[in-house]
């Protein structure tokens, strides 16, 4: 019997019966199923109706075959004795329970068996698998990421490779069930590896876009308006030049112009604390540029650039009276209810 003459239905039925007898020793099972394909072909050629209509579901066919062949209980002889015996029984029971769950879950999902739904979804997985492998061979090497991988700046080549790999994956997916035992196992293992690789390595890339947006806030929304910068004034209305602002958790507020391109320091230079001359250790906290002038001039003499008076806020304890935000003040200073 050549594969061409075996109809898809016969193949499917055979495979299902074989699956249901998966717990048997391979030689025993092969023996038992030796004539099955020929038998099914003959039944199929003989009349109307599906094989399942005339012979019952593959699982019940397998059960009947097993029972009639006297294989309900594992042979207690020789190599199968003792512990192995019990393991075989356990495995078989698990298999039977699995088959039952398969049918029950299937009824809920509107299929005779849940595994049939999974089988119906398989082509979707084949496409996804091809795409993941395309990402593996292309995007990974560039260090970049896009849904259609680029190969050496060529999106077209990347797309062509993706399509080709998807096609290969689909063809492979259709043929895998007909492979011999070992090639089939290898194919399934490789498929699993691709799935794991896709989940572990690729999934973070898919989220990366969101990370980028969140990590560089352009400002803050407060009272319905955009707040792009904060200035701290003391009680006398003087600008507090080195005030840093923290939220209720003690984290520096990352608000303001992130790069100090003006002020004569040049882009990328580390902000210097004007009171100490030391580089600001938490240099992402407010204020980012030491020589800010503020949105308005105070009524008194301007003390720009000079060390902060002691009655004003210290750099780590910003004044609260002049700021327009409720989030000022280090966590230690906030009163607990």
């Amino acid at each position: 019997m050549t594969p061409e003459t075996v109809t898809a239905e016969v193949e499917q039925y055979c495979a299902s019966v074989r699956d249901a007898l998966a717990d048997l020793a391979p030689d025993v099972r092969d023996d038992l199923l030796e004539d099955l394909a020929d038998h099914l072909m003959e039944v199929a050629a003989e009349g109307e109706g599906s094989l399942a209509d005339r012979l019952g579901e593959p699982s019940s066919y397998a059960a009947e075959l097993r029972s009639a062949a006297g294989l309900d209980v594992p042979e207690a002889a020789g190599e199968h004795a003792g512990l192995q015996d019990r393991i075989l029984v356990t495995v078989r029971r698990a298999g039977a329970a699995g088959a039952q769950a398969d049918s029950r879950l299937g009824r809920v999902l509107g299929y005779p068996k849940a595994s049939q739904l999974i089988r119906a979804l398989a082509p979707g997985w084949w496409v996804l698998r091809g795409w993941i492998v395309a990402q593996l061979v292309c995007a990974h090497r560039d260090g970049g990421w896009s849904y259609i991988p680029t190969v050496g700046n060529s999106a077209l080549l990347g797309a062509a490779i993706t399509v080709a790999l998807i096609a290969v994956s689909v063809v492979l997916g259709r043929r895998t069930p007909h492979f011999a035992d070992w090639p089939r196992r290898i194919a399934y293992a490789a498929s699993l590896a691709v799935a794991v690789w896709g989940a572990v390595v690729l999934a973070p890339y898919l989220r990366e876009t969101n990370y980028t947006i969140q990590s560089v806030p352009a400002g803050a929304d407060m009272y319905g308006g955009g707040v792009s910068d904060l200035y701290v004034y003391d009680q006398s209305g003087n600008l507090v030049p080195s005030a840093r602002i923290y939220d209720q958790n003690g984290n520096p507020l990352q608000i303001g112009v992130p790069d100090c391109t003006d002020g004569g320091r040049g882009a990328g230079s580390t902000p210097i604390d004007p009171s100490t001359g030391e580089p600001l250790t938490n240099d992402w906290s407010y204020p980012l540029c030491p020589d800010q002038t503020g949105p308005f001039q105070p009524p008194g003499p301007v003390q720009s650039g000079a060390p902060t008076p002691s009655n004003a806020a210290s750099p780590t304890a910003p004044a609260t009276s002049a700021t327009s935000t409720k989030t000022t003040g280090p966590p230690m200073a906030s009163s607990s209810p």
Partner: protein
Amino acid sequence: MDSTQLLKGVLDLAVLAVLREEDGYGYDIVRRLRSAGLDEVGDASVYGTLRRLYSGGALTTYVVPSEEGPHRKYYALNSAGRTQLELSAKVWAEFSRSMSTMLEGIVAA
């Protein structure tokens, strides 16, 4: 009572009896059992029984090549099979006599 329940106990005997007439391959034996009146016999039961009788040493097999269809595995009784058939037939005859006597008059002949 379902006749499939009864069949389970006597399928060995039925298969051996069919093979006494003539060697046969699996599906051929299924057909012959059905045409002999065992309509309820399941394909899988017959194949399983053949496998078990073969493993038990009651049958021999040989492959018959065929021009159009697949090569078929034929089953044949060997001497052990014939002995088993004779013994089983005696047991069945006694059993069925007892049952018939017990049930006499219930079913109109």
